[in-house]
């Protein structure tokens, strides 16, 4: 379980997170929506310890990660996988080497076992046969899928997705949504995705939370979101250019 309590974070004079509270239960798929620049990726980076809050706490299975040192965080991160917005594949490594990297760092596996697992993980994302290709030769959708295979390499309990469908064409975006949903159900992973793509949010989320003004202003199932009467939420999910979000 992930529990975020009263999280505050400023960058210079800009307050990004302003007392944010959210709870994500084991095995659920939580989607966090919000406008560009509202702090969704910042929240995600706090959950995995890449950023430290100014105040507040984050509990992963009742352990407060905000007071952990780097060595403890490094140990905790073995339970996490993260898919970055641009996939963040290592350019100097092949696809197979990218997926194998977490296994080589943390596992006690033989090279043959690693090769077999890499093949298995790439098979799960529908990318058999690209093991020896470098990331520069891959399309955006393929990079995202390799990123996902790498995130799953050592069977994490939690996977974080930072804008998983941004920059993809609608067909590829839907394929990624399907992949995320199927993997989450098949492997019972707790997943947290941040996105401003509503179609993606409805498809992959058991619950959807909206981040606005540094806080979660709504939390509920996709149906509850669609029936929400908060004007800020309504403007965002309808994609309207006029409303409380844009009126000054």
């Amino acid at each position, binding site marked *: 379980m992930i529990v975020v309590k009263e999280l505050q974070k400023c960058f210079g004079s800009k307050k990004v997170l302003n007392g944010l509270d959210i709870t994500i239960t084991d095995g659920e798929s939580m989607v966090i929506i919000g406008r560009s620049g509202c702090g969704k990726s910042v929240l995600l980076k706090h959950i995995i310890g*890449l950023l430290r809050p100014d105040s507040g706490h984050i509990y992963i299975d009742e352990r407060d990660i905000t007071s952990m040192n780097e060595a403890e965080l*490094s140990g905790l991160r*073995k339970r996490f996988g*993260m898919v970055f917005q*641009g996939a963040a594949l*290592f*350019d100097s490594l092949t696809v197979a080497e990218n997926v194998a990297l977490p296994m080589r*760092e*943390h596992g006690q596996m033989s090279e043959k076992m690693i090769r077999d697992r890499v093949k298995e993980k790439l098979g799960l994302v529908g990318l058999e046969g690209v093991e020896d290709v470098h990331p520069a030769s891959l399309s955006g959708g393929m990079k995202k899928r390799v990123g996902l295979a790498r995130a799953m390499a050592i069977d994490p309990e939690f996977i974080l997705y930072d804008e998983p469908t941004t920059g993809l064409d609608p067909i590829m975006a839907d394929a990624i949504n399907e992949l995320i949903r199927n993997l989450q159900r098949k492997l019972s992973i707790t997943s947290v995705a941040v996105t401003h793509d509503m179609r993606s949010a409805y498809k992959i989320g058991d619950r959807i939370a909206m981040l606005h003004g540094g806080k979660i202003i709504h939390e509920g199932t996709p149906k509850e979101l669609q029936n929400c009467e908060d004007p800020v939420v309504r403007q965002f999910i309808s994609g309207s250019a006029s409303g409380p979000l844009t009126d000054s």
Partner: protein
Amino acid sequence: MNANQPLVGAQTVGRRVVESLEETGRVFIFFVSVFKAFPGFWRKGHLVLEQMVAMGIESLPLVFVTSIFTGAVAAVQAAYQFQDYVPMRYLGSVIGKSVVIELGPVLTALVVAGRVGASIAAELGTMRVTEQIDALETIGISPIRYLAVPRMVAGMVMLPVVTIFADFLAIVGAYVVAYISLDVPTNTFMEGLRLFFHLRDIFGGLVKSFFFGIVIATMGCYFGFHAEGGAEGVGRATTRAVVSSCLSILVLDYMLATLIFRVLLGG
């Protein structure tokens, strides 16, 4: 002229000085964090080897050209200054000492800083702005241990190695010019080279190279790790890495020259 202008000017200069000192402190803290991650670096031996090839072996063509011409120019300039005052049999001594103590280590370091320092900053800066360094952390791999330590070790080892080549090539370049243009016979040149030769001069020059290697790797890694703002940020990081490396090499050269050749080895 506004009466406040001198004050504003002084404030600007003062602010810049303070910012430079703060940055120097941050670079030093970064260096200490890399040094603390050294234990066990041999477990990533393949990464160190890759960096040694990139920093050392691949720099050899550039160092070859630079060194040959450095030696050639040194011979021409020395001959010009010797005119009517100093016998040409001392040409070899002057070339040997100046190359081994100063020209070899410093010019090699400046050339390598421009090539390798820029490359390190650009590569790590690109990794930073494309979140690859964040990705390493999420995998539980320390970016310092995985990226910075191999480059630091490679710099410490390969700069002295490349400098040895540079010294040799510079002396060869000087000899060729001395023989062909200055009519200095081979045995005269070689006798001069041997005349005031001391092993400690080579040692002093290589100690300088060792520290220059640390500077180049540290600056490249520091500015690369702290790049932000996309392609423009990477470009800025690259420029700052090279400029900072070159300035640091020149300042460190003075400090090391004083320490090695005046305090430790001097009379």
